[in-house]
């Protein structure tokens, strides 16, 4: 194999590289449905359903009324949290081949997409905490129903609610993008292998915990910490997820 010596140098000085980071962000939101609109819609629909159910229960209870904390524990808001994984997977899947195919570097795409995820996590985190504020101001939407800041969240200051949600959403985004990166790199076979491995790991972990009779400690680990502390623990995991995703992306070939 002969080495190629450049026949002349193309001067760098007058050519600044064009970084397609901003372009990546704008392409993600070019059609805002997936990233900006549908999560809100989902949230509203789930909330609306819960709201309707509360009223139905109250109607059914009639004069007997319900317990004070009947509507305090509500997992409905977790819909939007887990939906972020879907958003992340869709966003990356749709745009990776398009953006890198038209000549952006994978690094620029990754930075732009991460910036998007961080921005979305912040937006939804703040948005949910604002709604939680309204919830508190209306004493649980007039029916003592706690949807946006239920259970342990009910007593947290709103800024803490915002930060906790933001961190958790960020975690979901990077989990989603990690999964998408596996798909972009190895395709459908990769995804199957990945989920099979996760299932095996999960089972192994569950078995190990059961063997060590450690369920109590595991439970204690989670209940002893506030939601904020747990959310903060997810931050390094988000970082790792992001880096792994980037590492996978660096060797991925755009489809088409």
């Amino acid at each position: 194999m002969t080495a190629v010596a450049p026949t002349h140098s193309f001067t760098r000085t007058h050519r600044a590289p064009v970084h397609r980071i901003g372009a990546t962000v704008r392409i993600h939101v070019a059609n805002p449905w997936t990233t900006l609109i549908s999560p809100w819609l989902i949230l509203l629909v789930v909330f609306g359903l819960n709201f309707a159910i509360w009223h139905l229960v109250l109607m059914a209870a009639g004069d007997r009324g319900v317990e004070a904390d009947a509507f305090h524990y509500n997992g409905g808001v977790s819909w939007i949290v887990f939906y972020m994984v879907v958003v992340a997977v869709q966003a990356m899947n749709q745009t990776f081949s398009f953006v890198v195919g038209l000549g952006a570097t994978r690094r620029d795409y990754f930075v732009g997409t991460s910036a998007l995820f961080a921005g979305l996590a912040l937006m939804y985190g703040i948005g949910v905490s604002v709604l939680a504020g309204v919830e508190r101001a209306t004493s649980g939407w007039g029916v003592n129903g706690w949807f946006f800041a239920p259970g342990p969240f009910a007593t947290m200051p709103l800024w803490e609610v915002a930060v906790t949600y933001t961190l958790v959403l960020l975690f979901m985004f990077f989990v989603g993008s990690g999964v998408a990166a596996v798909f972009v790199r190895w395709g459908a076979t990769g995804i199957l292998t990945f989920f099979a491995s996760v299932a095996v790991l999960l089972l192994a972990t569950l078995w190990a915990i059961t063997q060590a009779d450690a369920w109590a400690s595991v439970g204690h680990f989670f209940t002893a910490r506030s939601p904020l502390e747990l959310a903060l623990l997810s931050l390094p995991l988000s970082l790792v997820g992001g880096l792994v995703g980037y590492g996978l992306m660096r060797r991925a070939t755009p489809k088409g």
Partner: protein
Amino acid sequence: MTAVIEVAGLTRHYGKVHAVEDVTFEVEENTICGLLGRNGAGKTTLMRLLTGQAFASAGQIRVFGESPVENALVLSRTCFIRETQVYPDSFRGKHALRAAERLFPNWDADYAAQLATEFNLPLDRRIKKMSRGQRSAVGAIIGLAARAELTFFDEPYAGLDAVARELFYSHLLEDYSKHPRTIVLSTHLIDEAAKLLEHVIVIDGGRVIINDNSDALRGTAVTLVGAKSAVDTFAVGREVLGTDVLGGISSVTVAGLSPADKAAAAAAGLEVAPVSLQQLIVSRTRGTVQPQEALS
């Protein structure tokens, strides 16, 4: 002349499949270069390697003097439009053009709009719902309006009818004349594009088998038609590219005839018929099995 693309010993294996094998060539600045060959010969893989989108197994690539892999400096001056361009599901035609505007520093929005009108492209329609021809038109428009210094077109006209293809060629030529840049065009519709190509590289089975100026290439072969014995005598010791026999008449395509040889053939009563670029390339590439174009 400066070389915009320099490739040496480039190889890409997918397991046992040798998609690109020991390829060495240069593409000169501001020329229209044809990358020709059969389906599965390695043209698309080669272009992916040149744009840093696929990774070489061995060999060297220099685009604008540097390796193109993850190189924003090089890639921002490049545009690669492929046969099956991928777009986000939710994108309409106008979204694709707007995205291109943000990705290419030399983008000409007015030119893009003009092209969209001329190609009858419904910009408000979802790309998923467009016909094959309309989809190709989106890619062709992006490739033209991006005015990238190095533009790759990989069979950009799937589904484009003859009228649309003519439109594409004339715009390509016109814009290339007004804004000189390097264009690499891969196609299997060789005769249509032949007059546009200044240089021709033919890939067969992952290897480069022809790398020549197109004018020089034209006329390197002729077809001699006449009585079998006369034709056979003339073909002795020459490179024969193809033979057809019907009764006592033989038609033999022969390479490497000088003008004097051609005159002698005519004087011997043989018909000396020209061979088009497409016929020449077909005769040199028929009969070989192409490696599968594996998309990793």
